[in-house]
């Protein structure tokens, strides 16, 4: 199977034009296999996770006493971003790939409009996380890597120190965010240039507008396609984890904005994700020096 489709330019050069569309099945099957293997692993081999009880831990009990019942995890703006991005992403995926598997409809206009929605939502997200939220909370750090190695060792039956609880975001969330960011940047940056090749209010249609040659355009289409098919597997795994029982409290928090105090204390390290007494953990807690 070829990974890239090639064509001959008017000047006789062999240039890439698309990914091989069979890759969408490769991505879908890879995503499905991951889900099956993970579900079997969790169902039959993984040690059941036990949530620390607040009652048995004086430190947690003290934390619990000062916190309200609901801990705010995501602000309204963050939730709106997530669902708008999710909606536009689903529209982009369906409009991109349904015609490839035989469902014909006028997809281009819907696709680029959804793409514009995605671009705007991502711009909002970048500004929001940079200036309002804790920008670094979603990026993996040294501690995450070390804890991941401890977890792996313990899962393999080796002796290893007990890993710390997570901050606001578990490592898998951080890894997923990085994968989405890579695939997202790939489709967004190429997609913005590709807008010049369809009729939109933004550009006068002109394939020579940016001075790119056929080779460059071909690479751009290939990157757009690779990012697109990567999203098939990414979205499948994301939805899978979102509906898994042990993760469902996080999914609910993306709807309602909060998690329970017990989940907060059971799954998260208050030092890594400090929550003030009003329970608003959606924005970075102010440092003591700032509090007056």
């Amino acid at each position, binding site marked *: 199977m070829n990974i890239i489709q090639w*064509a001959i330019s008017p000047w006789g050069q062999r240039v890439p034009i698309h990914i091989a569309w069979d890759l969408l099945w490769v991505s879908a099957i890879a995503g499905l296999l991951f889900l099956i293997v993970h579900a079997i692993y969790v169902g039959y081999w993984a040690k059941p996770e036990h949530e620390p009880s607040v009652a048995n831990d004086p430190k947690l009990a003290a934390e619990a006493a000062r916190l309200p019942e609901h801990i705010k995890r995501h602000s309204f703006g963050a939730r709106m971003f997530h669902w708008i991005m999710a909606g536009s992403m689903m529209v982009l995926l369906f409009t991109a790939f349904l015609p490839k598997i035989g469902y014909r409809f006028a997809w281009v206009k819907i696709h680029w409009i959804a793409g514009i929605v995605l671009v705007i939502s991502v711009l909002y997200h970048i500004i929001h996380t940079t200036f309002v939220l804790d920008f670094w909370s979603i990026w993996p750090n040294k501690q995450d890597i070390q804890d991941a190695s401890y977890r792996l060792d313990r899962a393999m039956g080796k002796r290893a120190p007990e890993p710390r609880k997570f901050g606001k975001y578990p490592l898998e969330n951080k890894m997923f965010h990085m994968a989405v960011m890579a695939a997202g940047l790939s489709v967004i940056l190429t997609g913005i240039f590709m807008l010049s090749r369809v*009729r939109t209010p933004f550009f006068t249609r002109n394939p020579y507008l940016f001075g790119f040659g056929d080779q460059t355009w071909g690479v751009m289409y290939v990157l757009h396609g690779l990012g697109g098919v990567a999203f098939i597997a990414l979205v499948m795994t994301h939805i899978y984890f979102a509906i898994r029982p042990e993760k469902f409290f996080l999914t609910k928090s993306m709807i309602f904005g909060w998690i329970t105090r017990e989940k907060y204390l059971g799954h998260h390290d208050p030092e890594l994700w400090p929550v003030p007494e009003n329970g608003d953990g959606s924005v970075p807690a102010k440092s003591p020096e700032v509090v007056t």
Partner: protein
Amino acid sequence: MAVIRDVMPAFELFQPGSIDDAVSLLTQNGSDAWVLAGGLDSFDWMKDRIKRPKVVVDLSQIKELTGVRDWNGGLEIGAMTTLTNVVRHPDVIAKFKILSQAAEAAASPQIRNQGTIGGNVSQDTRCWYYRSGFDCYRAGGITCFADTPTAINREHAILGADRCVAVSPSDSAPAFVALDAKMVIRSARGERVVDAENYFIGPAYDITRMTILQPGELLTAIRIPATWANTEFYFEKVRDRPVWDFPLINVASAKVVTGGKIDRIRLVLNGVAAHPWRLSQVEEAVTGKPVNEETAEMAGKMAIEGAVPLRYNGYKVLLMRNLVKRAIRGGDSKEAA
């Protein structure tokens, strides 16, 4: 090394004697198969080595695909009926003169003797970038070479363009849409009948095809219901030379006028988009209006709303407006060159 273009490339030729056999061959060979009707579009593609089918299914031996028959007061025309036979058939002339006029406007007498009505409606676009073998959008690529600041695009689309700006070159297609014809399609799954209006597709729907025909499917007949028989028809084709030329734009309309007012109308143009362009909103707007200059003027203005001319085809906007005005006014169908 130069490509030799005066001989046919090798392919496996099948000449089935029945529709069932033809459909079976098309099903077996899928996208490797090429349907050969009159051959006038096909041979260009093959001799130029732009299309390289492995299998050619020649329909010329299938008698059930030819002829004009009565169909519930309307007509059923076999897909392999020659254009000449459509032009001259007394029932076509008696009931649907617009179809006779449209078919007669196609190409030249010699070509009409060989060309078929099924081939005329299903032929590929004449965009020369595409037909020259450029890997453009329509050929599966990522560039429309006809829609660039330096492109030669005098004959291309002013409406419905979506990445590709090629147009449908058929003369009979707008007449069939105006007559609300039904296209009969056979495949291994059986028979399906679709409105002519939905048979032709634009690039937004599928950029590599002009019709909804998929590999394994065969257009077997075109049925024209009696609904528009003997109504007021208007057909006009504008082209660069009086014979043997494709339309720059053609217009076909069928209307019923009572007491000087338009009761119902279907109005279709070709050569402005990748598929026959039905003016449904114009039809609605002029229904109930008197047939006069004011209505014609309004229809002409409405018709060109949304038109986006390319560098060299701005003339099509005015031409389209005027053809619509003339179709509303009615009178004898014309040929212009």
